[in-house]
């Protein structure tokens, strides 16, 4: 029996041919462009789905801005040299949506087919945990810029190619607990509302352990576990209201966080109680007068509204505002930090003007201390592969005149105060009473 592919309709035939041509063209360019003398970075961040708006797109914008500025030599010292080691940077931006299996596949594609020299990316902890072993296996410098799971360097115990230039969520929650204990010394009860997945569960476990470590008399009166992306928190708000806590901790992010604050605010949930939002910084621009003054916000490090005054921040913040008509939030800062770390590492070890090899980059980045708009970043944990930085928390304040929100009463906790030492899990460290913590 003879079988034959037969496309009879002319329109169909034309579109089939066009598709085939487009595919051939796409494959063709990827093969040719591998050795064009440019330093190729694969950037992976959410461009679709719920995490795109609050995290992915600001991060992609940050990457776009800093790569363009580096290529034209517009970034202030110590990054005024063009590109990376004098070579133009070429960026391939990919969408992080689709889950860990898809991301591992795309990560392999980036390295083996697109021939990138380094990969920077990943917001979701699930994606990070899946990519971590693959990064070591494929031997290309891979920098996690955002994901918060504390398990990354438990999965890869002796990292060579894998780095994280941002902090993990443990640090956020220990700092949040310290801030609450210092600013609300009379706190007796605490309640929680978290998205029911790894991020929410780990955040709450670390926070409550740390808070009860500092103030053992604090009681948990309610724990709410809505689904990620639920959007409707009527019953949870009632349950929280009835349990009447002094402080409500939430690691909510994005639309869920904004919806919770809108609904809770309208129902008076925060009238006599303080909310602690560990990822709250991304919402400052949209909160307006819907979030009560005094709400405790975190920004996962000294980023966004918490960023210090320095030459790099004085350049970055206005440049971002001018180009994207919005304030840069923490994901943008963290992305820029990762790219600048990569540049600093490559230029430390590679001969000027030459293409930095993978070995040179990882050798340079390991244990490196480099400058970023958020201040100095020291790669001193996990054998020089995990960044140490300070973490800031502050209180939200809405200015009715300008119609803008800001943070006040900011307290910054040094990395040594809130990070467990290498080789110790956060839970062990907290339970042992934070031994070796250096707090001011």
């Amino acid at each position: 029996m003879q079988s034959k592919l037969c496309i009879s309709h002319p329109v169909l035939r034309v579109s089939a041919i066009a598709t085939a041509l487009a595919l051939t063209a796409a494959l063709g360019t990827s093969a040719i462009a591998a050795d064009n003398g440019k330093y190729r970075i694969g950037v992976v961040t959410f461009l679709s789905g719920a995490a795109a708006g609050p995290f992915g797109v600001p991060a992609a914008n940050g990457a776009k801005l800093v790569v363009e500025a580096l290529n034209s030599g517009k970034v202030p010292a110590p990054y005024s040299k063009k590109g990376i080691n004098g070579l133009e940077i070429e960026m391939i931006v990919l969408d992080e949506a689709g889950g860990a299996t898809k991301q591992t596949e795309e990560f392999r594609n980036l390295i083996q087919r697109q021939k990138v020299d380094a990969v920077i990316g990943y917001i979701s902890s699930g994606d990070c945990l899946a990519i971590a072993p693959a990064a070591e296996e494929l031997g290309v410098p891979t920098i996690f810029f955002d994901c918060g799971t504390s398990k990354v360097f438990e999965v890869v115990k002796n990292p060579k190619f894998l780095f994280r230039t941002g902090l993990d969520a443990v640090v956020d929650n220990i700092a949040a607990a310290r801030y609450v204990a210092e600013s609300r010394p009379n706190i007796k009860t605490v309640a929680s509302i978290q998205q029911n997945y790894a991020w929410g569960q780990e955040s709450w476990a670390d926070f409550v352990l740390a808070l009860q470590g500092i103030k053992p008399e604090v009681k948990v009166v309610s724990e709410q576990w809505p689904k990620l992306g639920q959007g409707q928190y009527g019953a949870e708000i009632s349950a929280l209201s009835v349990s009447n806590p002094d402080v409500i901790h939430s690691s909510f992010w994005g639309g869920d966080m904004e919806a919770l604050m809108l609904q809770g605010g309208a129902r008076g949930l925060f009238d006599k109680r303080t909310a602690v939002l560990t990822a709250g910084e991304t919402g400052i621009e949209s909160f307006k007068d819907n979030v009560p003054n005094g709400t405790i916000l975190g920004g996962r490090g000294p980023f966004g509204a918490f960023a210090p005054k320095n030459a790099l921040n004085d350049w970055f913040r206005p440049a971002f505002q001018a180009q994207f008509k919005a304030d840069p939030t923490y994901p943008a800062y963290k992305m820029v930090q990762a790219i600048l770390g990569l540049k600093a590492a490559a230029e430390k070890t590679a001969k000027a003007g030459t293409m930095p090899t993978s070995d040179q980059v990882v050798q340079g980045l390991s244990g490196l201390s480099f400058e970023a708009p958020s201040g100095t970043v020291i790669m001193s944990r996990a054998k020089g592969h995990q960044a140490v930085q300070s973490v800031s928390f502050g209180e939200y304040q809405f200015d009715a005149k300008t119609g803008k929100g800001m943070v006040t009463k900011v307290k910054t906790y040094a990395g040594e105060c809130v990070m467990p030492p290498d080789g110790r899990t956060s839970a062990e460290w907290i339970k042992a009473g934070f031994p070796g913590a250096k707090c001011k």
Partner: protein
Amino acid sequence: MTTIFAILIDGAIYASWLFLVAAGLTIIYGVMRVLNMAHGSFYAIGAYSAASLVSWYFSGNQGNAYWSLLMLPACALVAGAIIGIAIEQGLLRFLQGRDEILMVIVTYALLLILEDATKLIWGVNPYFAYQPYRLLGRTSIGEGLRFANYDLALIAVAILIGLVAWFILNRTNKGRLLRAVIHDREIAIAMGVNVNAMFAATFTIGAVLGALAGALTAPAISVTPGIGVEVIVLAFAVVVVGGLGSIGGAAVGAILVGLSRSFAVHIAPEIELFVIYGVMFLVLAIRPQGLFGQALARRI
């Protein structure tokens, strides 16, 4: 005592929201036998258009703030009608009578396309229309427990829509014709019922209901990409519990799911997620066609 009140009121509010979301889905399935995955997109489009209009209204020197409450259904009517007619006339009309599974795939493709289309139009940044939510104030019930009157009003809206749908289906001529189509499409055609017109009208009404659910929810949430996909799974759960294609079933399904979820949140929050699908499992184990669904013999 406060907890019991809270469970009942939260359950009723959540049930009315579920009913609003599920009503359009079940009407379209009942008449057209199309399990419309794109219903989530209608919800999202309703929410986005309402949020855009309301925030535009409040950003200017607006007049009476109460007008914003009327804008919500108006937006839903316009956006839902446009998108409903466009999809029915532009696509589904050509696929009438196809296998139900194929229609699930077609409408799933539509969902993906519309998701991206909303992103093209509105971008990825959140939209807010929070003013109407606060406009109606709040009611105190017991100590420390307050409800937004907007949410309480949602219960009335859901009851109204349920009653109107019941009245149209059972007490009007058009409704009787529609029921004839639901019971047996072939006989209805043979008796001279204009099924094509019925389908177009039903799909548009379903789309408007989906958009209405989105528009009425918009003031309480942050309208962001992905909200449509989230609701479609819940809407399916409710519709399946009640029996596909039955308005009364959707109402009972919504009340069952709403009350059990609210009970779980107050008594055992860790099983909140499980409860919704636990109810679905129980109902389907006892009555696979749903509470109000009719078991059909397969035609060969």
